[in-house]
């Protein structure tokens, strides 16, 4: 018996095995049959006779006019996107072909889920039996879960690397003994403070501090005692700092402070006095005063038309050595020339103000020598 070459006849149940999401819409727009998964999605039991338009919305089709039988036939040959009326988030896509001569017996649609597959599976309680074995739905679900797991691992790695980087950065910026900023962090901080002045910030003061009589402690009592003194100094300095200030250990017994402005010379002197008094009081060895004190030199950014880190450091250093030469345990503040606050040219530092500390009594004696108006005199 010769079989017709151009057609296949299959029972609808077999069609359902091949295409669990098919729909046969009759010429008047009523459902004639549907695949088992489609029946599940419609959720109304036997689908025969249900109006197509009551259960599906056309999301994308080039030609459509209302929901008449004519328009259903118009869908033939097109890629379609449908949504379920009872669950508009579930999107189906597929193609429609005519049934019978020129669609006389309606249209046949074969649909599948798009990227919303995982949600649809969850909402409609679908199982692997709801998909044709040739459908890549399982692979898509597998990939989605595998991707989530892999992304989770990457995210974990990134977080651990980020934490390690932060720790390494903090370590690279910290003085291990005292926990203060180190020289590198100080250089960054000074440049940042100068950059902020250029952007209109109210200026800052730079203090350079060198311990007095520290070598004696180190030499006679050992490095461990010296280290404890340094830690105490760090503590005293840290307590004097405000938010936004920076305190750094920049050498063996050398420290530097960046004090954000606005800040007045007498405030700087008072700060110097508190630091000196605090150090002398608290740097003790075996409960006895260690004799350690400090000399400070302070410069202010307002003294410079264009502050430069090297220049400011050199001037603060010169002011520090002025304190040393005057007998140590004192603070020298180089103030901008009165009436010439800014801008001033490179011969700026002009007037020094000093306080000295009497180590024996711990009281501070303001000393205000009228220093000549040049840096070399400081």
């Amino acid at each position, binding site marked *: 018996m010769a079989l017709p070459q151009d057609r296949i006849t299959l029972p609808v149940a077999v069609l359902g095995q091949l295409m669990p999401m098919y729909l046969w819409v009759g010429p008047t727009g009523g459902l004639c049959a549907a695949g088992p998964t489609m029946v599940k999605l419609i959720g109304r039991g036997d689908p025969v006779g249900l109006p197509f338009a009551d259960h599906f919305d056309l999301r994308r089709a080039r030609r459509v006019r209302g929901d008449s039988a004519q328009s259903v036939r118009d869908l033939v040959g097109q890629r379609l996107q449908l949504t379920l009326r009872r669950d508009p988030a579930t999107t189906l896509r597929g193609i429609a072909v005519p049934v019978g001569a020129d669609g006389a017996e309606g249209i046949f649609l074969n649909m599948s889920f798009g990227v919303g597959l995982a949600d649809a599976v969850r909402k409609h309680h679908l199982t692997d039996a709801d998909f044709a074995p040739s459908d890549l739905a399982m692979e898509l679900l*597998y990939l989605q*879960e595998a991707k989530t*797991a892999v992304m989770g691992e990457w995210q974990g790695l990134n977080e651990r690397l980020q934490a390690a980087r932060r720790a390494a950065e903090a370590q690279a910026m910290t003085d291990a003994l005292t926990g203060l900023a180190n020289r590198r962090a100080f250089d960054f901080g000074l440049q940042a403070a100068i950059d902020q002045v250029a952007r209109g910030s109210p200026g800052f003061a730079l203090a350079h501090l060198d311990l007095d009589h520290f070598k004696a402690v180190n030499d006679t009592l050992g490095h461990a005692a010296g280290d404890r003194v340094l830690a105490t100094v760090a503590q005293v300095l840290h307590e004097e700092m405000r938010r936004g200030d920076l305190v750094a250990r920049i050498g063996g017994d050398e420290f530097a402070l960046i004090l954000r402005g606005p800040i007045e010379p007498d405030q700087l002197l008072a700060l110097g006095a508190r630091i000196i008094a605090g150090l002398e009081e608290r740097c003790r060895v075996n409960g006895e005063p260690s004799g350690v004190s400090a000399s400070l030199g302070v410069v202010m950014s307002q003294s410079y038309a264009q502050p430069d880190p090297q220049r400011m450091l050199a001037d603060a250093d010169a002011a520090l050595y002025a304190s040393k030469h005057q007998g140590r345990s004192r603070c020298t503040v180089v103030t901008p020339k009165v009436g010439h606050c800014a801008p001033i040219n490179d011969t700026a530092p002009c007037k020094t103000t000093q306080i000295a500390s009497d180590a024996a009594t711990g009281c501070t004696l303001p000393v205000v020598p009228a220093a000549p108006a040049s840096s070399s005199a400081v």
Partner: protein
Amino acid sequence: MHGLINRSIQIFLCETYGGTLWADVASAAGLGPDGFEAMLHYDDDVTDVVLASASGRLGKPRAALLEDFGAFLVTQEPLRRLLRFGGVDYADFLLSLDELQGRGLMALPDLDLPALGLNVHAGGRFTLTVQGDLPGWGAIATGLLRAMADDYGALATIEPMAPKNGTELLSIELHDARFAVGRRFDLAQPVVGAE
């Protein structure tokens, strides 16, 4: 060896035998206390040292340790789910093993899983060839396939056979694909935080 596999071995050793054993093994392999990073690659020698060291410390042959590792993998829910996507029942799952390496590569293009090849014989008998970089993938597959049989509720015997030309071989006998009620597997991934 991919870090994901190394990291899995680490978690297996930690969870089964405790952090102290892992610390000893890690130190023998020159790893830091945090061990392996799942998304980095490691020299195969490191994996070998980890396995040799754990096997020595536990007094357990390497193959037995790897079989336990294979079974342990199935206790990891995300991995169990990925494996269950392989088939609707155990027989279907066995037939999907040919694709396992490819599925791994779909998830992670540099994942070095072994190549598996399933030969089907009459009467529910199969042989599986296992070809991987790490000697012992056959033992891992043995443990994993036994655990997956339980997961599907199938009754099967899986035994290693003598390797042929460097290829590891397993014999699988499927007695009853629906011997018991398997563990539940919903296609929909459980929602995190929902009960």
